Every structure is written in C-alpha cells, then in structure tokens.
C-alpha cells in the first residue's frame, strides 16, 4: 500500500527578465546552495521540494523559465496550470524592475485567473549596486495587491520564506474552496497576513 509522501501538490512558476536570478533562487531553495557562475536557462527546468505547512506535507513543483526575450511567447504557454507565480526582478537592474509590469500583464493574459502572485526583488545583498529601492517594490506590489519580498539567493535571505508564504497563500485558497467551517479561521488568518509583511509561516 503505497502511502503518498505528500498531501498536496502545488505547481509554482518563476518568471522575470534574464539574469535576475530565478535559477539561483530555485537552486537555493531546493539544494540550499548557490553558484555564482551564470548559465542562462534555455528552456524550462523544474525541481521539487516538500515543505510542511500547518501539518500538511506540500510537494512544491517549481518551474524555472528561460528569461530571455525571444522565449517570452513560448514560456507563457507554461503559465497555465501554475498555482503560484514568482515575478523576479533584480534590484541592481532598473530595466528588470520596469518589466515587472509587462510580466504582470503576461500573467493576466496567460495564467489561471486565481493564480497567487508574488514579486521578489532579488540580489538584495548587493547594496552598493542597488538602483531600485525597496519602497518602489513595495509600491508596485501594493498597487497590484500582491505580495512582495526582497530576497538574496546568494546570502540566503528570504528564499525559503518567500516560497512558504506563496505556498501558504495557495493553501489558504485551497482551504477557502472547501466549505468546511473549520477553515474559516484560516480565512481570517490570510487577511491578517495580507495587511502586514510580517512572516507568519512555518517552514521547518
């Protein structure tokens, strides 16, 4: 009797301009490692990682997409079926931040309507090269009503937290869909979470 090694399976997607660090973020999360050599992702990779949230084992299947411009139309066809999308920009690259709006539009056009989104300002360890301040990231996140976090795959800042928070948001949504009165408390919880950027998750 094959017992499943997880309770839920969430498909997540990483998108953003080329070179913002999508692959590094994924590598940090899945293997807890960092490599500074830049190898452009030419295609679609995925990795899995199981996390435990609220007593549930959640298997995250995270898809890493090629960021290069010429692949944009192709990568959008992978949006469908994603339950959560991380939009990544590089705080040292103005253009990558400006393009967030374009990526958001892409999501609107191609992803599931109820997809959970989150903006990540990556490379936040590189303070001396910063060109996009945190307030601008927060402002755009507020404008679109989505989550935001600054991360560093290199310094391992907020990586695990970001994934767990995104997963938790999806979990809330999954719970909302059940008409189980027990889940009502979780709904409240989610609203509380939306209002503050304080992390309440529990990634072990």
């Amino acid at each position: 009797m094959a017992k499943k090694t997880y309770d839920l399976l969430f498909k997540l997607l990483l998108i953003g301009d080329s070179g913002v660090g999508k692959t590094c973020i994924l590598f940090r999360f899945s293997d807890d490692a960092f490599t500074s050599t830049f190898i452009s992702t030419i295609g679609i990779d995925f990795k899995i990682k199981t996390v435990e949230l609220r007593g549930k084992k959640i298997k995250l299947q995270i898809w890493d997409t090629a960021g290069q411009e010429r692949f944009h139309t192709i990568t959008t066809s992978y949006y469908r079926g994603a339950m959560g999308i991380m939009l990544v920009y590089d705080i040292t690259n103005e253009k990558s931040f400006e393009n967030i709006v374009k990526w958001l539009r892409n999501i609107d056009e191609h992803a599931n309507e109820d997809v959970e989104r989150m903006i990540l300002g990556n490379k936040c360890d590189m303070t001396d090269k910063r060109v996009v301040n945190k307030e601008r990231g927060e402002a755009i996140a507020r404008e679109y009503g989505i989550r935001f976090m600054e991360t560093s795959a290199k310094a391992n800042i907020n990586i695990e937290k970001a994934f767990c928070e995104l997963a938790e948001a999806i979990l809330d949504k999954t719970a909302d869909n059940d008409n189980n009165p027990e889940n009502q408390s979780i709904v409240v919880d989610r609203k509380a979470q939306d209002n503050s950027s304080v992390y309440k998750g529990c990634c072990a």
Partner: protein
Amino acid sequence: MNNVTKNSILQTVEQKFRLGEVVLVIFEAYQIVGVEHQNRLLAIVKSGNSSALFAFNVSNYPPVNLSDLHIESVIPINETFLIDCSSGFGISSYQFIIISGNEQTLYYYYPDPEIFRSKEVFERTLKKLIQEYSEEKHGDFQWLEAYKSSDLTDIDLNIALNKFPPKNRESKFREELERRKPEYTIHEPYKIYCGTWNVNLNAPGEDLSLREWLATTEDAPDIYAIGLQEIDMSPETILRGEIRPDYNWIAKIMEGLHPADQYEELLTVRLVGMMLTIVIKKSLRGSISKCCSSMVGTGTLKFGNKGGVGISFQINETFMCFVNSHLAAHVQEFERRNEDHDEILRRMSFNDGFKSRNILEHHQIFWIGDLNYRLTKTDDEGIRTFCDYEKIFYLDQLYIQRVQEKRVFRDFQEGKINFRPTYKYDPGTDDWDSSEKNRAPAWCDRIFWKGARIEQIAYESVMQLRMSDHKPVYGVFIAYILTRDEAKFKKVHEEVLKTVDKYENDNQPQITVAETDIDFGMIRFHEHYSRELLVANNCHLPVDFEFISKDDSSNGVCEDWINISHLKGELITGNSLSIRIDIFIDEKAASKIIRRLRDSTPGEKVPLDILVLHVKNGRDVFITIFGEYQPSVFGLRLGTLMKLQKPLIEYTLQELVSIDDDVNNTIPYHKDAKAPREIWLLTDYLYRNGLLIPHLFTVQRKHKLSPRICAIRDWLDEWSTEPFPGTPQTAGEALLKILEALPEPLVTITEHNLSIYASYFDKCRELVVNKMSLLNRKIFLYILMFLKEIQKNYANNGMDDRTIVKVFSHPMCRHQNDQHCQRFLLQFLANDFKEFAKNEFAKQ
C-alpha cells in the same frame, strides 16, 4: 559453476569490496522478472562484526570485469533478515525467500537441484551469521552505506538501459525509511505467554479456573496465545466444519488471565476442535495492526478434525504469527503428522487485505498444539515410572523427526522439557491411563518458536488441571520487538523526505544538447540547408524525448519549411544521436518566411523558429534556429513585382515587405506592362523555345526539384544579361513556382462561384472582371494567351487541353477541389478571348 569458474568469479566479486570486507560465499541463483529468468549472483560478505547479503545482477556471464557486476540489493544480516529455504513449499521447490524488514521480500531460485552442496554451504553460512547477530544483538552496518547510497549517484545499468523503470518516489521513500530503521527503532521486551491444552471434549465447567495455568508468572504477560484442542468433536461439528468461536471457553480464558493487568481479546480463530485466542494487554491495542487469521484442515476429507489455526499481526515493526495445531493421532502415524505439518506450512496464508504472507514470512513465530508425537518404545513399562526425562527424550518421535531427521519444524526451537509427559492421564487424576487401551505416556503438547531475539523463560505443564486426559502446557517468552521511537522517527522522516526530494530532482532524465542555437546563415529560395543537432544522454536514466508544439493552439512543432529528422526518440545512458534539421524554402514557404522576418533588422541574426525539445518527466530545452533570408521573386506579391525599379537582389527584405504592404499603391506600377518582368521573361523564353517541345509541362511536374531553378532564380533576381540558364522545361517549372509562391492566388474567384459558373464562358469572363483585380486579371489573361499558344502546337508538343489545365489550375486558383478550376480554364482554351483580353489590357 565448476571450481575453476567459481574461483575466478569469486576473484571478480572480491574486487567489488574494500579491504577488510571478506567475501565468505558466493552463490548463483536466479530471479524471475516478468517471464524472464535473470541471473543473480549472491555474495555473503562480512566486515567486522556485521555481515550482509549482496545480490548482483550479472550483465555478462561469467563476470570477468567489475563492470559485469551491478549491485542490485544489499541486505544487512540483522534481526529483520530471514531466509526461508524450506524446499517443497512455495510455487517452486527450488524457491527460497529472503525477507528483510517489513516490505522487502525477495524471491530467488536455485538454478539446479544438482548444486545441493553449494546450497548447503550458502544456507549454513547465512544461518550461522544470523545466529551470530542474534547473539551479539549488535552490528555496525556503516560499511554498507558505500554500497547502498550508490543507487543515488551511480549508474544503475538496468535503469539506464531501460530494462527497469527507476524507482518511484513512494517506493524510494519506503526504502529509505526502511534503510534508516535502526536510527529510529529500539528493541523493546514483551512478555509472550503461549498455552496449549487438549481439553478432551470437556466444556469449561462453572468451577473451573484457569488461573493455575494462565496466571503463573510473576509479571503479567503482554500477549497471551491460548490454543485449545478437542473443544468439540461431535459429528455435526466436524461435518459443519465449525468455525464459530466457543465463547464459553473464551470467557473462561479471560477470567483466568493474570490479574495484574487489563486485557482484551484481540482475535480468536476456530476450526472444529481447534481454537486459538490471542489476548493482549489493553494498552497494546494501538501497537497492533494487520491482524488476520487463517485455518487449514488436514486429515481425512480435510474436514478440520485435524489441522491448524493461526493468527498473524504486526506489533510495532515486527510481524508475529501464532499457530495452534492438532496433528494426526496414533503412535504409528508419525508420518501422517509430518504430512499434516507440511500441509499447514504450505497452505496457511494470512491476508491483511493488502498482502498475503505465509507462516515463515514473519519475524517471530510461535507454533503450539497437540502435535500428537509419541514415544516409540511404547511397550516399555519403564516409561511410566521414569523420572529422568532426558534419558527417554530421545524416544520422542518429534525429537527424532525434528532433530535427527530434520524432517519437520526445521529452524524452529524448543525449550528443554522438564515436565512429565502430558498424555495420557485418567481424567480427574494424575495417574497414567488405566483404560483398556492402556496408552503409553507421551509429550503430545508442545511449544516451538522461530525468530531472532526470543528468549524462553518458562516451559512447564500444569498438573493441577485434571479435567482432561492431557495436561496443559505453557511457555513464557521474552520477545524483543522492534519499536519505533516517535521523536527520532519524526526527525528521520523529515530527513528522508529531503532525500527523496533530492532523489526525485536527481532522477530527472536530462538530455544534453550540444548547441541550443543553430545558425543556418543565409538561406535562399529552393536550396537545401542542413544542420546537425547533437543530443546525448549523459544522465543515468533513459531519456524519452520529443519535439513538442510551442503552444496549444498550433499543432506543428516547427515552421513547415523546417524538417526534423527525429521528432521523437529514446536514448539510453551514454548514447547520443545526431538529429538533422533541414530547411528548404519552397514555393509555399517563400512568402511565409518573408512575413516571418518582416520586423527584423537587416544584417541581424534572427530567430527563424524555436523548437521545444521535451524530455518525458524532465525539463524542456529550447533550440533556436537562426538564419537570414535572401528574398527572391518567388514569394512576393504581383504588385510588388510590378513595382520593382532595380534588380531584386538590391532590395533588402524590409524594403520588399514595405512595397508588399503598399496596398494603397503609393508606389507606381509599370503601367504599360501586362505582366511582371519575370513572368514576361519566362513566357517569352518559352514562346520562343518551348512551344514545340513534347511534354513541356507534365502533371507530375518532373522538374519540380531541378537545381536549375536556383540558376533561374538568380538570373531573374539579378536582372542578369547572361543567356537564360535554364531549359524550357525548367522555365515552365519556374513560372508555375512564381504563381504558387504568390502570397495570394492569382485567380481570386471563390471555389463556390466557379462551381456554379465554370461551365459558362460568359459567366467566366464576368467573374474575371468582377472578382479579380485589374492587375491579376491582366496577368491571368496574359498567361492564358500563352497557354493558347501551347494548345495550338498540340501536334508537336502533345499537350492537350486537359493536361494544360491540370498543370495550371492549382497554381492559379489553389482551390481544394480542383475540378471547377479546371473547367473554368478549359472555357478559355475552348473559346476565343482575344478581344476580351485586348480590352482588359487597354484598361489602366
């Protein structure tokens, strides 16, 4: 294996191991995988105080190189290790079973009954090691890690060669948890009480108390297994094959248990006279699972007057089995008793709803009952008066059959008997049978066990219970049961999840692509271009690849002018494949590639297409095809051709697109020309050189792929002053290709209109005027006038009307149903339209 081969194989096997790891025995066996028999080489290896059984898959027999041997299983010889070599059972008499842990049961077969001797050595060695382990109760298996973790990183040949699928996540998870069991399990002692009594058809009387039998130990036992025989042997009971438990006896048993603890009945199984009840401490309820029973009737008609009943369950991590049996009676019938024993062993099967296991597939087995074996020297009155049991014990048939003959209860153990024979007494007394039959005393009632970590602390009979002609017997054991430490388990579980995640990430099949950018350089119309895309499988799993569509809307994996030699395929580890990618811009593709590249900047490397190379269960690789296109007259609009002011070669693609897009005609035509320069040149050449040539045009289009087309292309595109480089046939083909390459068909009349009016010449003329632009109309009539000339020369060139229209109808109209278009063209060939054409040509 003869000795020479065996020694050389041994040497090869030894190379697999490190210093200090000693290969004790190698043994050749096989496994049945599907319908295939596969060689397995088993090796028993010892290192320090621990040992393990290695099963090798042999890819080349006899193995000479290290690479011929692949470790398939590594089974530590510890408390979970069981080998069942009882030939005569199972589906094949050559089968033997290795059980490791709870889940892993490996079935092996001896290749040949002739190898009895080496089989003996193999089994003996294993048993010795099992014994050693159970005595030491400790072994350091750390050295096995080097071999076990290998499947995470090393190439498993069977998987790589696509013989077996890789383990799935779930089985890997189970395997890892199993492997790390020693980290989260401890052995906890449990007190097991086994009792057996042949009650000689007596119902339990009111005043009967079983305390003297069941509550004799100082501490309360954790588990009771009480087996009764002959609770009822009436003909009705036998015929009915009674299986309903006897609640009077169960109640009596429950009353008689040790008073120091709370008990509950776990399960009772009954068959006619035999009943087995398992009672457990209430506190143990949560530790027990997969509880199930089984019964086997033997003897005449298998009614169940003799046979066995059994109960199997899992307690914590240990599988336990209790069997109560009543074997054939009478002194001389020991062979029938042996057969009953065999039959119970063979037929008793426990099914917990998911898995069946037989008696031997348990870690700890207790077999009790009235086994009915007697003492052979029945006439010796001395037996009745002896007091030194050891002296007469060798007369016991069961001792002879089990210890001397090794016929029954092999691998089972029995404690030393220090009690009087339990049969046969005058009921109500402690006196030997005084009836006419004058039965000789015998140790009919016995208790055996099998399994590691079991210690017997008592083996007694109870003289005070005198109701039956048998005395009850009991055995008390300390059994060490593998138990999970929940805190440690949680930690290991988390780590195993991580390992499994890593395993899954590492076990993604991956294809290695030499280049993801393929540059075709400059591409020209009607020329073949080829590039090789080298893909390889450098991972340890088979790769199943396929080029897939970029999006859900279009079905093609690439532009239709690109051809991929292998759209899908399989690569086993270490293999590579050269996939050929061909580009050929034909008449259909010519306008498409111009559209495709319209937004590119001149001189820039442009992606012509992106291929998605998908690996099943793995990642997708994008392969970008770069190239530039040299536009040609083929693929441009008629309007564009009419507006060219200089050789086409001098225009950039972007300039041509902007002329093509000039729908408002801001750029002037060559007003006086009836047709574009290129069409005029080709028809003019044909008019002068081709009219008399037989089969100038053929329906089969024999010159479709002629290389001269390229020469004609250059001649046209360059406005060359050289002589025409083609032949009349290829000039004809080039003309057809220009028509076919037009972004829109020359004849813009719908199929529907032609289907209605194609039989009326007047209507056809009207359609030409109303449905076709002036430019198209002029060119159409110009070409038709040329076709008329061909028609005129039928006597020389053999081109009849039918052939002419068949060749030209599709290039001109491109309708699905060509018939109407052919009729339409026939109207013009059959009628005189010189005046009509003249009028149209005059229009501006």
